[in-house]
Every structure is written in C-alpha cells, then in structure tokens.
C-alpha cells in the first residue's frame, strides 16, 4: 500500500486518541492528528486550542492555533486565560491529551523548543514554549512528534522548555508538578513509550522495514528495545479519510 511517513505518523497519533478525550493541539501535524482521530476512530473526542476555542468543527484545516477556522462552530470562543485554566484545573485537565513537538527530547521525555547552545548566546533560536510548557506541566498525558536524529534525541537538552518526567520516577512530584507526563513519542521510524517504573523511554515498535538498531543509531542515548513489535500500517479507510476529509489540499501532508 502507498502511504507517506507523515501519513503513517499522523495515523499513529490519531490511534492514541479515544472518544471522550479532549485533545490539545498545536500547529501542523499535531492539528492534523486531532482531525484524523475525530474523522476516523474517535468521533466523540473534543478538539481544543490554547487560544480559547473548544470543540471546533474544523471544516477546513487551520494553519496556526489562531487561524479563524478554529473559531467557527465551537462550544465557546474564549481566550488564553480560559484555555490554560481548563488545563491547570485537574477536573478538566485530567481528560486532556496534549500533542506536542520539539527540537530536542531526552530519555525522560523532557522537551526543548527554545535554543541550541547557550541561552544568552544561542547558536540556533527556536520559537520558544508558547503553550507547550503549560500543557506539559498540566495535562494527564501527552503525545510527542519527533524526527529521529542524533541531534534531536539528546543525553542532555540544551534548554528544558517543557517538563516530561524531569529526572525520573519522582521527578514531577519533587518539583511540585501535577501527575501526568509524556505517554508516546511518534517518530518517522517508530513509536516509543515510557516505562511505568523507571519513567525512561523504551521502544514500543518499529515502522515496516525499520530495525531497532537503526532507531538506536539515530539517538544519542540508549533505550530498551526488547518489547518492540512491528507497527500496523495504515488501513485504506484511514488513509482515505485522512486525505479526503482532513487535508484535501495537502496543506500539511
């Protein structure tokens, strides 16, 4: 079957979303994954934006989280204050799944989306946290999109923008963060999870044609691969719905 890596990654993320989940999405592939879930496997999930829109209909794909397309046919149009309070409040925050991306990730799922190099004199400057640090601080679980590259899977981040499990099993609690944390990392070679005891990343599965060794070759740190299985490829139905219902003009795909 014919599909692109981006389509495979989007569908892998969509499969993690269940009916009843409130899905926080950022820009690009994360937004598309939320739309895919809604159209394919979780019609009763709720799409939610940090800018204050909740349960957007999304007839057309937005190109940013402030796109006017997210304001159409919502349950309520508020602002940033309402959106972040909904996440910080444990009663609603517990139902929220965050979808995030970053420039770097470490073994505990901490993310850097701020700088490469020194903070005061960076070699490369990125966009910064936006709402990512807030989402990673508050919500019950998050799904992270990453490209498999050694310079992205780092032993030590250049800057810790968004908290994962910080330094291990009790990291969040010691820091004073609510429970929660990263659940899955979806890459262009396979999918990782986090061990419930060590809170370290491990390999859940590889995409067709990819070996665990090839994944390890693209990381600076080692992860366990003994539980890895092959990831199911997208079905024709998933692909058709993604292409025709979610992104018919290929704005993201």
């Amino acid at each position, binding site marked *: 079957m014919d599909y692109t890596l981006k389509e495979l990654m989007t569908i892998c993320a969509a499969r993690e979303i269940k009916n009843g989940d409130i899905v926080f999405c950022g820009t690009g592939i994360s937004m598309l994954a939320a739309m895919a879930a809604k159209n394919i496997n979780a019609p009763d999930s709720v799409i939610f934006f940090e800018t204050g829109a909740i349960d957007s209909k999304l007839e057309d794909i937005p190109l940013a989280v*402030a*796109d006017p397309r997210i304001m159409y046919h919502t349950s309520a149009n508020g*602002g940033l204050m309402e959106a*972040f309070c909904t996440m*910080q409040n444990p009663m609603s925050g517990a139902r929220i799944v965050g979808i995030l991306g970053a420039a770097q990730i470490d073994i505990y799922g901490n993310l850097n989306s*701020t700088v490469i190099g020194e903070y005061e004199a*960076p070699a*490369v400057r990125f966009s910064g946290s936006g709402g990512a640090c807030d989402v990673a601080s508050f919500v019950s679980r998050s799904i992270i999109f990453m490209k498999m590259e050694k310079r992205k899977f780092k032993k030590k981040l250049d800057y810790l*923008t968004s*908290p994962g499990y910080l330094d291990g099993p009790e990291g969040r609690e010691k820091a004073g963060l609510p429970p929660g944390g990263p659940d899955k990392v979806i890459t262009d070679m396979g999918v990782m999870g986090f061990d419930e005891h060590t809170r370290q990343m491990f390999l859940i599965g590889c995409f067709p044609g990819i070996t665990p060794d090839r994944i390890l070759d693209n990381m600076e740190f080692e992860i366990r691969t003994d539980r890895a299985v092959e990831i199911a490829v997208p079905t024709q139905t998933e692909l058709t719905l993604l292409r025709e219902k979610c992104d018919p003009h290929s704005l993201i795909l």
Partner: protein
Amino acid sequence: MKPEDSKVMRLQDAVEKYVTEGCHLSIGGFTLNRNPMAAVYEIIRQKTRDLHVYAHSNGQGVDELIGGGCVSRLEIAYGGTGKFMSTCIRFKKAVQEQAITVEDYSNFQMTLRFLAGAMGIAFLPTRSSLGTDIISKWGFPEEFREQHDRIPNQKLVVMDNPFDGWCDTKRVVLVPAIIPDVTIIHVQMADFRGNCRIEGLTFADVEQAKAAKTLIITCEELLDDDYLKTDPDRNQIPFIHADAVVKVPFGAYPTACYRYYDYDAAYMNAYARAAKNDDAYQQYLTEYIFDCPTHTHLLDKVGRGRVESILADKNRGYAKHLDRK
C-alpha cells in the same frame, strides 16, 4: 455622546503621541490573527527605537517590529506564525546575533502577568514550568534588573504553598505583573469613546488592554453614540480603559480579522521569503512600509483584487475558498 468625549485620532498622531522611544509596549492578537498591523507599520515608519516589548505569541506583528529595528528588549512566550514561519525569522536572527535581549516565559505565564497588571496586583501563582529552564534561565541578569526599575528584581519565584498542601498543591511559581506603557489592539468594532467589541477569540487582548497605562484601539468599524451599548453582552472592553480610537479598515492585514477577512497567505509567504535575506528584507521595508505613507497605500500596493480574495464568508468567519498554499 458629547463631542468632547471622543477619543478618535489619526493613527500617525496616536502612535507619535504614545509610542515613544524606549517605551514598554504590548500588542494584541495571536500569531496570524488580529495583530494591530497598521499600527505596527506606523511605528516602523516613525522609526521609533529601543522598545521593550511584551508578547505571548504575537507572531507577525512582533517579527515586523524587530525587523524594523524598533525593539531592544523582548519578553516572549512564542515567536512564530504557524505554517508561514514556524519560528519568526527576523526574531530568530536578532536573537542569534544578540541584537535584542530576550527573556522566555510560557503563554499562560504571560497571560497571567497581563492579568496581574490588569488586577493591580504584584504577581499571580501558577503550577506551570516547575522544574524547567524557564525558571532557572533569565534573559535579564540580576544587575540589569537592579538598574532598571521597570523590570522586577527576579524573573519568576518558586514558593511552597502557604496553605499547606491545599488543592493537592505543594509548590507554585509566582509570575510578576506587567504594566505596559502602551497596549495596542485591533478590534472589529469600537465607538468614539473606546467601548470595544471583539468577535471570535479574544486571545489575551482584554487583559493586555486593562494592564496598560495607555490603550490605543484600532478598529474595522467606528460606531456612533450608543450602538454598542444596545447589545452590551457582546462587548469586552469598556471605554474607561481607552485613550485613543482609530478607524483602520483592514487594520490587522496581512493577519486575519474574524468575520471580516482572512490572513493573506500570499503576503505571509512573500514576507517569510524576504525575511530570510537582509537585502530582500530592506527592499520589503522600503516598498511596503516606508514608501507607503498610510495603511491604505499598502493595501493599494498589494492590490484590491488580492484584498477582496481574503474577504470572510460572513457565516464561517473566514474565506472558505482562499488558496492558502
């Protein structure tokens, strides 16, 4: 309304009077939506320098202010406009070249900081960012803070919950209030005195407006007398906060204004291309900003056909059939 209550001004005059060299400025909107772009272009045209800018995720407006050489210091959560610039290009360049000093926060923290300013309280608590470098890494060092009384002595403060674990909370982060000298917002409707109606998401415009010492409002429609007061449930900002009201149709262009017009994808793409190259960017500044004495001139330069192509479908609030490639 009595004529003397009118706060209506020309954009040039409002910017010249209130946005002065070295002042602390915040602008409304978010990434590619409802940035007060006509005002941003006027600030660039007037060559106002050394601004201290507060931004959550103001995207296009902040990138153009930096590109126009107006900004020295920036407190920000996010510099990007989504698909068009995943990281704002002139922002990225200025930070990497250390041409501006930047200090990072999260979007919620910036929103709370504006709310604290609007509430008249020194700080507010949140649980966001505990354990991260947002707390440990400061853009403005301690000595710099001591020398500048407009910047609080610390960036963020972590404190144990004094209510002893109440609400399952062990610890909080205190974020200091922001009191901008000037906030500029662009809204769909305002009246002569400065009552405002925002349609669609308000982002943090209301908090930013109420935190500021001076509020400049640009609007698509300027209404007479009591029009907005006949349907007050839809208004967000009462006139008591307003200092200047300016009618600027397409005042958010090239960013979007819900129910009025979409973002102009062609402009944003061309901007991103020019921003990558210093010579092309100088040419952009000359052609689109310095050679256009007003926003109307800029719109004429872009061409009325292009502007019409982004007009919003009134039901959906955006241009359904716009080519956004």
